[in-house]
């Protein structure tokens, strides 16, 4: 772990936005992440694919420090996440400094997790005001702009429960980017949606990628991974089995496991037209 940390400091000049080294995570006896390495560069969209239980959700939850880790190290813009140097070794960071680190990342959850007791507008603005110290007016202005971009400008005063799943997730994406994070982590953002609502959410994510947002997307949407992501990472049993540029990844999978995984999906491919329809 120490070695990984010194290495990273030396490379600060060409430092990727996110850098994960030998990440290990265990739940009791079960190893969820078994030495995962990952780098995400500025403005890059990385899709993380893999069968259920492969550890891909755990990976993004660890990066966002919603889980404690059992080994390895993670960096955001070269800054060590969750730990600090102390007396020649390392110790866990104070809770308040972890909060400060989290504020530079956004996260979108599978179950949306909008706050049901607040209106859509307040869901988006509250962190900007109470955590980032923006004025209510600034925050409102940005929130309305974002709502317009995700096509929900008429829903500002609605409560989340009166929105469809797809609308809720679009609000959640607006909420995640409202505070201008360095990177947005998506944890299976379309897995809880009815099939006909998936397209609208993917379209918003595609738009976001086109603005140059750095994104890590855990997903089962192969179309999205191939068409929108710059790079794909395939995980199985808590390890990264294969990674590569998206076009090569799908056309020329090298490992047997990825080939088997992709062949299972090729049958149920959704028409790429679905993406285009929503954008109009």
């Amino acid at each position, binding site marked *: 772990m120490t070695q990984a940390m010194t290495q990273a400091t030396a490379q600060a000049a060409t430092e990727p936005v996110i850098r994960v080294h030998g990440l290990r995570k265990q739940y009791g006896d079960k190893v969820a992440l078994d030495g995962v390495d990952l780098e995400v560069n500025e403005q890059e969209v990385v899709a993380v694919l893999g069968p259920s239980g492969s550890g891909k959700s755990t990976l993004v939850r660890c990066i966002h420090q919603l889980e404690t880790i059992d080994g390895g190290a993670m960096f955001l813009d070269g800054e060590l996440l969750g730990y600090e140097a102390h007396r020649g070794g390392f110790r866990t960071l104070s809770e308040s400094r972890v*909060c400060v680190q989290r504020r530079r990342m956004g*996260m979108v959850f599978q*179950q949306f997790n909008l706050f049901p007791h607040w209106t859509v507008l307040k869901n988006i603005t509250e962190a900007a005001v109470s955590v980032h110290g923006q004025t209510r007016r600034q925050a409102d202005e940005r929130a309305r702009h974002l709502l317009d971009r995700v096509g929900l400008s008429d829903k500002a005063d609605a409560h989340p429960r009166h929105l*469809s799943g797809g609308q809720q997730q679009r609000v959640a994406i607006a909420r995640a980017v409202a505070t201008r994070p360095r990177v947005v982590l998506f944890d299976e953002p379309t897995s809880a949606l009815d099939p006909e609502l998936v397209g609208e959410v993917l379209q918003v994510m595609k738009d976001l990628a086109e603005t140059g947002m750095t994104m890590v997307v855990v997903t089962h949407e192969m179309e999205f991974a191939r068409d929108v992501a710059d790079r794909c990472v395939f995980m199985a049993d808590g390890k990264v089995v294969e990674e590569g540029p998206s076009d090569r990844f799908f056309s020329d999978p090298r490992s047997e496991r990825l080939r088997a995984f992709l062949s299972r999906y090729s049958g149920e491919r959704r028409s790429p037209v679905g993406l285009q329809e929503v954008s109009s």
Partner: protein
Amino acid sequence: MTATDTLPTRPDSVRPDAAAARPRFRPGRLASVVALAVVAVLVLLWAATNPRFEWPVVADLMFDPSVMSGLAMTLFLTVVCMALGTAIGTAAAAGQLSDFGPVRWTCQLYVGLLRGVPPLVQLIFWFNLAYLVPRLSVGFASWSVNDLITPLTAAIIGLSLHESAYMAEIIRAGIMSVDSGQRDAARAMGYSGRQTFWKVVFPQALRVIVPPSGSQFIALLKGTSLVSVITLTDLLYSVQIIYGRTYQVVPLLLVAVIWYLIVVTLLTLVQRRIERRLSRGYDRSTSTRARSLEGEPA
């Protein structure tokens, strides 16, 4: 006239329409309404005609100054002990949910102990605290416990601590009812632990906390009558003093009963209002998950 008379003999001759259907005649319901009405009239007649109720005395003493001051004491005790109990209970609930063992075990022990001791026993115990701890010293200051523990302080301590144990359990259940994804999302937004609790978790927990807290408040109001054993002049003890002098036991108990019922009814109305306020933004009996998966915009 039964329904079969009017139904068409051939089912296809008239188009069935639920809007035109008549309710069925239900003889059981009619019989029970008659029976209940008869019982109600008999009870009212008995209450009105039995001279032992001494209704004129009830009317006369309803607003007696000592009854009024007893009622004021009962309300004062209820409000103070509920406030203290809720404050201590919130702390104990947070402690029980702490990930730090020693704090958690201490709070669990506290709740277990205070919930296990009957409130009447606690009142007598606190009233007699001076036997156990004759003097209380903090630094150079020192007090005689006999001076500190009056019927009022003993009542406030005993009822507040008893209440805090129940409130701790209610608040703990409320906090645990909030989906863990809410906490994840709040932390992911960069909220501190305190902000996460007060902005996101607690407001949602309130919906679960308020209904049983209302019942607790009402139970506490009635529970204050226990303080009559340590000679604190609450509503019950005030009427006991009067009937000890005049021997009008039944009418004076009725005075107390009527006041308890009036206050409880008012509290119930307030509770309903608060519950309705808190449920804004929620649809009754529809879970987040089920609703959002349906994906129907309202």
